[in-house]
């Protein structure tokens, strides 16, 4: 159980720390990064299911972000690995279900299933990687404020901000509950029984509701009238325009044209 809690802290804490570094990527307006990520994800997902070659150039984007933001590749890959099982589970049947030979390399035939499975893995790494890079280079609070600027309902942006702030507090609260429980119980092998579990959870819930009341009182003391004001200035300057339009144009070119084929063709011709 403690490993699970460690993992949660590892997840959130480490990404948070990364988001506070001060690189050219971190300095960009969050809206530019958010919109670029959206264009990226839609371009990647819109390829047909057997596509492999034309997905490869899209690794350019994560590579550049990792470089520009000085982000730790190993950590990000580990996070990808942790969540991969569901996608692998849903894709692993493709090779069995789709045995049509599509690609012939000499005498060696590759079935459509293997191609689509490989394509699915590439999509997974690209899309989920893009989300991780966004958070590691921007930080959650900043993303929420950018969302609000991009006309997400303010109440939802505030909800995200509050949730994020209190995750840490409530995880610490939960840790105290669990520690108190383990100090008073000897039978660690069998875990927590259903009865005790309900009491722990119920108590946590009561404390949470009380906390919400205290927070509300504190907000009222600070002139809260039901309307939350977010004050944060962002500047969408030249750098942002270059980042957004540059990458978006690149993705659209890579998606719609055969620039890649042309490039490879030229290289093959020259090398002949």
């Amino acid at each position: 159980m403690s490993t699970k809690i460690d993992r949660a802290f590892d997840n959130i804490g480490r990404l948070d720390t990364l988001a506070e570094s001060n690189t050219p990527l971190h300095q960009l307006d969050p809206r530019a990064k958010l919109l670029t990520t959206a264009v990226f994800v839609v371009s990647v997902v819109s390829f047909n299911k057997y596509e492999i070659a034309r997905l490869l150039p899209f690794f350019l984007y994560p590579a550049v972000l990792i470089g520009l933001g000085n982000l730790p590749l190993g950590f990000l890959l580990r996070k990808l690995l942790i969540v991969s099982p569901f996608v692998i589970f849903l894709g692993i049947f493709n090779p069995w279900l789709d045995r049509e030979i599509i690609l012939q390399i000499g005498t060696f035939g590759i079935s459509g299933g293997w191609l689509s499975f490989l394509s699915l893995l590439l999509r997974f790494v690209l899309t989920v990687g893009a989300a991780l890079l966004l958070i590691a280079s921007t930080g959650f609070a900043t993303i929420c404020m950018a969302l609000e600027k991009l006309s997400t309902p303010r109440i939802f942006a505030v909800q995200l901000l509050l949730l994020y702030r209190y995750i840490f507090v409530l995880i610490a609260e939960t840790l105290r509950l669990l520690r108190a429980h383990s100090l008073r119980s000897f039978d660690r092998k069998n875990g927590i029984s259903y009865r005790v579990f309900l009491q722990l959870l119920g108590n946590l819930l009561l404390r949470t509701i009380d906390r919400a009341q205290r927070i509300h009182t504190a907000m009222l003391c600070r002139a809260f009238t039901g309307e939350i004001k977010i004050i944060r200035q962002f500047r969408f300057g030249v750098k942002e325009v270059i980042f957004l339009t540059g990458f978006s144009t690149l993705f659209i070119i890579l998606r719609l044209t055969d620039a890649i084929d042309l490039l490879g063709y030229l290289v093959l011709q020259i090398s002949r």
Partner: protein
Amino acid sequence: MHMADALLSPAVGGTMWAASAATVAYCSTKVRQSLDDRKIPLMGVLAAFVFAAQMINFTIPATGSSGHLGGGLILAILLGAPAAFLAIASVLTVQALFFADGGLLALGCNIFNLGIFPCFIAYPLIYKKIVGDHPTSGRLLTGSLIAAIAGLQMGAFGVVLETTLSGISELPFSSFVIMMQPIHLAIGIVEGLVTAGVISFIWQARPEILEKAAADRPIGALPIGKVLIGLAMVTIFTGGILSWYASEHPDGLEWSMFKVSGQEELEATNGLHHSLEIIQEKTAFLPDYNFKDTAEGDSGRLGTSASGLVGGLLVMLMGIAIGLVLKKRGVVGHDHPHPHPHV
């Protein structure tokens, strides 16, 4: 149970995004209009509670596995449908970003599957009808169990439907359904038991909390029917536009390799799968151009695809090189992460 970007086609993902975004906007207005500003911190903190609560596990006797709270239903009971929906959507957003659960495009599907079903169907139409205004422990248990099971069954079916419509996974509809539904029956039973248990605990310890939640809940004024009809309209509208767009710009789906190997399109085995496959072909988002070097005949075409692979690899390697160079330069001046500043 989380849907993933990699399994989605843009049409399905976009449609679900539109439906979920519309519901978020609608619920935000509802919550703002409810004039109960205590709800704002309560929503945030209860959503964080769901996170924390998932760290407490109990042992399920005789199975060797463990269970924990999912959270959708309990949020609906404590907050009412619109506020609970926003809370669930926020939890899923945090999961998508920090825990890499699914990805950003799939977020629309996940909010739909795990938010709309419990908040707008399972809670008002099942839980409330069974439990009523004067809960007893028996009614609480029956109501929570049935509502949780129904909510999760619908959510799981949503995952199956979205995956099959997207057509990236080859898993046939029928076997996927047979796999998903029983697993989520078990999860639903655990969820129902835990929800009933916690609500009973609160009912015994501090009944006024639930009474207050029941009294000021704007659910009476919330037209569930209208919400569902509106949602269906948004879904059909965006789905229609996206698939119309896709069919106006038919995708050159056949990979150039199809022609090279002389193989036909995949043979669909059963009727449903076949029709789903047609939908999938129709829903591929953007037109696909194939660069063909017709001058050289067959070998030329093979050369084209090989060149595609070469070109792709080349750009990828270029990207990695750029990344490495940037990173080398970055180490010198910039990066100085601060210790974790929170709490």
